[in-house]
């Protein structure tokens, strides 16, 4: 008897289906609060999925616990609503065992950065081919309004009536530090941009990390309104595009330049000369780190792809080792049992 082959060969439908948004809607009633930013993320995801041209049965959504983690129930693919913070672990096992699948991890700022911080960090450093979408509403919603690891310093919440005494962390900075190969940010209100970011994340080979600024209209309403509302967006957000100078403003009239390692706003920059040109493909994360430090009101908030580089993926490397070992000769159980010294008793 020899080593097994993956039994799922042949289960995969060979024909590439043409699917529509409706194919990704389940029969479940969506239970988020009316007005929640999650609706927009769900809608953009359902719009984007058909564009991937991947059979529905090869898509898997895995979530942890929290409002965002209800997501898999509403997407008509394979779905796994797991336990608090652990979605990256289940996704890692699934993708490692089954590199043929496209796996999304849906998490939030509490799920992904507090209870599950360690798993998120390691999934990113391994560069396993997962699409991690982190809904950042800077609050605990499902447990009804406690501060989260991304809540602003001094924030007054149910568990911090005198204001928090904790400094928040920045999800993008964590992703960069962990070595994530695709790092992006979007916002629930900017549906077109969000859809594009989700698409690019799914297309990226290797770990993709997308932070989505998501409004919790019950416990933290307007957390991003100051820069993400349609009327102010152009002035207060800067869209990162690889190879292009950083420009923002209603007429793209302003720019960003570097003074040493410090970014500066250049108002009414007539020429692109001297403006900071975005390089998402740089292996070095210094530039991305500078960008992530820009925040409203001192700067426009950077939105878009901070980093997008190619690197071997964990799941491929594991598969490769197995394939190479098996190519040299599939394991024989008889031989393995008889390995080492044996003796015969007549």
């Amino acid at each position, binding site marked *: *008897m*020899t*080593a*097994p*082959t*993956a*039994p*799922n060969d042949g*289960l*995969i*439908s060979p024909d590439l289906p043409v699917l529509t948004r409706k194919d990704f809607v*389940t*029969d*479940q009633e969506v239970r988020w609060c009316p007005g929640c930013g999650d609706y927009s993320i769900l809608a953009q995801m359902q719009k984007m999925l058909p564009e991937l041209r991947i059979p*529905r*049965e090869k*898509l*898997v959504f*895995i979530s942890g*616990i929290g409002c965002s983690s209800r997501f898999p*129930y509403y997407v008509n693919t*394979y*779905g*796994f*609503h*797991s*336990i608090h913070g*652990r979605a*990256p*672990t*289940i*996704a*890692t*096992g*699934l993708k*490692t*065992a*089954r590199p043929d699948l496209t796996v999304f991890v849906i998490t939030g700022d509490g799920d992904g950065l507090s209870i599950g911080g*360690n*798993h998120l960090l*390691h999934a990113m450093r391994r560069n396993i081919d997962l699409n991690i979408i982190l809904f950042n509403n800077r609050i605990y919603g499902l447990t009804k309004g406690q501060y989260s690891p991304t809540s602003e310093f001094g924030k007054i919440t149910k568990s911090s009536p005198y204001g928090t005494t904790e400094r928040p962390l920045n999800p993008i900075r964590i992703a960069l530090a962990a070595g994530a190969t695709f790092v992006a940010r979007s916002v629930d209100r900017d549906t077109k941009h969000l859809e594009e970011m989700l698409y690019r994340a799914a297309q990226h080979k290797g770990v993709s990390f997308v932070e989505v600024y998501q409004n919790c209209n019950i416990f933290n309403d307007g957390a991003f309104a100051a820069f993400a509302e349609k009327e102010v967006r152009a002035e207060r957000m800067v869209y990162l595009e690889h190879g292009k100078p950083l420009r923002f403003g209603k007429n793209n009239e302003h720019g960003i330049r570097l003074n040493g390692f410090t970014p500066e706003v250049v108002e009414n920059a007539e020429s692109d000369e001297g403006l900071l040109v975005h390089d998402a493909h740089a292996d070095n994360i210094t530039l991305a780190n500078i960008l992530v430090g820009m925040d409203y009101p001192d700067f426009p908030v950077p939105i878009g792809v901070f980093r997008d580089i190619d690197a071997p993926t964990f799941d491929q490397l594991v598969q490769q080792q*197995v394939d*190479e*070992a*098996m190519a040299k*000769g*599939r*394991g024989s*159980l*008889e031989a*393995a*049992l*008889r*390995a080492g*010294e*044996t*003796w*015969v*008793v*007549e």
Partner: protein
Amino acid sequence: MTTETQLKPEHHVEELERVTIRFAGDSGDGMQLTGTQFTRTAAVFGNDLATLPDFPAEIRAPAGSLPGVSGFQISFASTEIYTPGDRPDVLVAMNPAALKTNLGDLKPGGLLIVDKDEFEPTNLKKAAYETNPLEDGSLAGYQVVPISITRQNELALEGMPLSAKDKFRCRNFYALGLVLWLYGRTLDTTIKWATEQFKRRPDILEANLRALRAGYNFGETTELFRVQYRVPPAKVPPGTYRHISGNEATALGFVAASVLSGLPLFYGSYPITPASDILHELSKLKNFGVKTFQAEDEIAAIGAAIGAAYGGHLGLTGTSGPGLALKSEALNLAVMTELPIVVIDVQRAGPSTGMPTKTEQADLLQAMFGRNGDSYVAIVAPCTPSDCFLMAIEAFRIALKHMVPVVFLSDGYLGNGSEPWRIPDLSELPRIEWKYAEPQNGKFNPYLRDPETLARPWAVPGQKGLEHRIGGLEKSGETGDISYDPRNHHEMTLARKAKVDRIVNDIPPLEVTGPEEGDLLVLGWGGTYGSITSACDNARKRGLSVASAHLRYLNPFPANLGDVLKRYRKVLIPELNTGQLALLIRGRYLVDAISFNKISGQPFKIAEIEGKIDEVLGLRDEYVLEFTRSAGVSGG
């Protein structure tokens, strides 16, 4: 010129049925290797044998110190044996600390071989000896053979271009050669091993072989030993044998489960004593399609195993007690999502960090109950090192057929212990049945149960038309959707329990050794099999009406257990915990079982169980455990 042979003193040869030797030295002295090499030779010779390694907790405790002592005990015999022996007949002590920590276990009158060169003031002080025990008469109760091992080893290696340190490190082979001679063994097995092991270091090979031969020749030429011993081969069933440790057998068993089922094996694990060897073994076996994942923590290890099982592969994770505690929430997710994962727990002395290198069987209740809610898993427990192989296959056989998580309770004694193993023919191995969900029309219900086993269908991503959502929230048994319906939760909880209970139809009955009914049944589980079986054998030889039975299936229990318990006037349950199986037996069967507990980090001695048997049968006063100052103190 006269040859050595002509100068050889006459050695009287004495035949023995069984011998137990303990090699003890500093953790840098290579005692585990010495013991393992002696074991291989005895195994190849055809003795039945059992071993007990005893590691210090520290990787590199200060040389010569008491916490740095490492020991390896082997018992080998011409008859069937079940344990590594209660007390050694022979102690090889490479330094004063090894003598101090192990002497208490040596049989009165036992043979004590010491490296006298190491009994100098610095080492004596490190071992807290005020006077030299070789000179102060304190060893009068033993046959002491002081040998100048260090010096003679140096002489044997004289002129070799090696550092003094490298030369010193060959002393263990000198001692090994001597002991091999003492028991009339050849050097062949060790030479073969060393030649392979040191093929890239011919100088080290040469040095080790010189030391080995020097030790052997010393035995042959010296008059220190009047007697050379013979332990003839054991009469064991015919077949091809190998020597195997519990952790090796565990790894091979899970690979066999993969081959037998045709499903690739995924192993997620975080390094932990004493389970890490399973990760080491499996990570080598990529040619079987095995994927191993060294996770960032215990939770990630089981999470990944759940993910692999969800993907239709064999999801396996392994750990020890503290890791099982960390995995409990995720294990419950596997209970709720009814995915077929297996969790290995190589138990060690707890609670908390406890004594990582010492054995215990105190995680039974954790495996049984250590989760929130009414949560049932199947539990199996191998009873000998080689039984780990079969029970590993059993674990996945049960998990896949019944769609249930299974906990595999090994322990440090089984995992690190070793024995000869008759290699099974593949046709003797159990069949593993599994199936993925059938394609169907309409909405797929992931909780539509098999009427016989109550297993839910295993629908894996990639199967068209079976897209569904599972998770930790309670689901409707009828639709698979989230449900807070009172009746549904009641029924789903009972169904999950009944599913585990019905495994009883799929496991063998409990076998009894000894009289079918009588005065006493000694009931055990896990690694205590050897001591219990031997103690009961001895009791029967003394004319007592004592039977033994050993549980390898802990949840559910075999169907005939209740009936077996009723056939004896008394039931004794020896356990290396405070009475965990006894609690389950008393609660389940209302039997007034007597608990016998030892929680010292060491396995039961046969004599201890015999002592307790005699007490229970009214043949003696209360039996009280005695604890010797053994190598066990090295835990630090």
